C-alpha cells in the first residue's frame, strides 16, 4: 500500500503533532502559522484527515483537561512518527537530487 508522498496539508498536520499533542483548533492555527497563511484548513478537511490518520494508527486521540473541561486532543503514535520520518527522508533525497541536477545543468 503506497502511503507516501503525503499532501502538504497532511504533512503539516503531522508536523504540528510531532512537536506536541494538540486539539483541533490548535492544529488549524499551527498549520496556518507554519505555512505562513498559505494553507488554511477548514474543519471538514482537518477532521477528514484526522479520521484517516486515526484509522491508520498514525495518530491517537485522548482526553485533555483544559480550563476545567475535557477536550479531545491528538498525538502522533510511533508508527506515525516513523512514517513522518520516512517522508522527511524522501523529501531530503528529492532536494539533494534537485540540487545535483541543477548544478550539472549549470556546469
Amino acid at each position, binding site marked *: 500500500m503506497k502511503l507516501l508522498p503525503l499532501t502538504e496539508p497532511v504533512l503539516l498536520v503531522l508536523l504540528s503533532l510531532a512537536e506536541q499533542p494538540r486539539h483541533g483548533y490548535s492544529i488549524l492555527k499551527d498549520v496556518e502559522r507554519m505555512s505562513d497563511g498559505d494553507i488554511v484548513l477548514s474543519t*471538514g478537511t482537518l477532521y477528514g484527515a484526522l479520521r484517516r490518520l486515526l484509522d491508520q494508527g498514525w495518530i491517537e486521540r485522548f482526553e485533555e483537561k483544559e480550563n476545567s473541561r475535557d477536550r479531545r486532543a491528538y498525538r502522533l503514535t510511533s508508527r506515525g512518527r516513523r512514517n513522518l520520518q520516512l517522508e522527511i527522508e524522501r523529501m531530503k533525497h528529492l532536494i539533494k537530487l534537485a540540487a545535483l541536477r541543477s548544478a550539472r545543468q549549470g556546469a
Partner: protein
Amino acid sequence: MSLLTLYRGLLYLYPSGYRREYGEEMSAVFREVEQDAADHGYAPCAAFCAREILGLLSGALREHLGGATPSWIPFRRFAMRPEFRFPRSTIFMMLALLAAVVLAIAEAESVQAKYSHATGSAWLPMVSILGYMLVVMCAAAVVWAILFALRRSGAHRLANLQAGDERSPVAACER
C-alpha cells in the same frame, strides 16, 4: 439563522457514524474559528464561510465515497484505504444504463428506417425513442435503488449469518 446552526445542519450530510464521532468536536472548533474570523472583519469572515462550506461538502462526499476521492478534492494522495470496492449495485446500474443506451440507438435506427419516407410529424420518432429510454432508465434506477436499500439494511450480512457462519455475530457484522 446563525452560522453555527447552518454548520450543524450541513453536518447532516456526513454519514451518521462520522457525525456521532466528530460532530460535536467539529462544531466546537468551528465556533472558535468563527470568533477569530469575526474579529478580523468582513472579508476574512466571508472567506471563512466559503472555506467551511466547501470543506464540509467535499468532506461529506469523501466520507460517503469511503476514501475514493476525485482528483479535485484535497488529500487525494492520502486516500490510505488499500482499495475502493465499487458497489455491485452501482456496476449493475451502469450496465443497465449502457444497455438502455445501446437499445435506444438500435430502436432509433429502426424508427428512422420506418419513418424515412413518411411525411408525418418529425417529433413522433423522437418522442418514441425518449419514452423508450426513460422507461428503461427508470426500471434500472428502481432495481438499483432496491439493491442499494438491501445493501444498506445489512440483509446480506444476516443471510451470511443464517448460512451457518462459524464466526461470532459481532465478527461477521464487522466485515
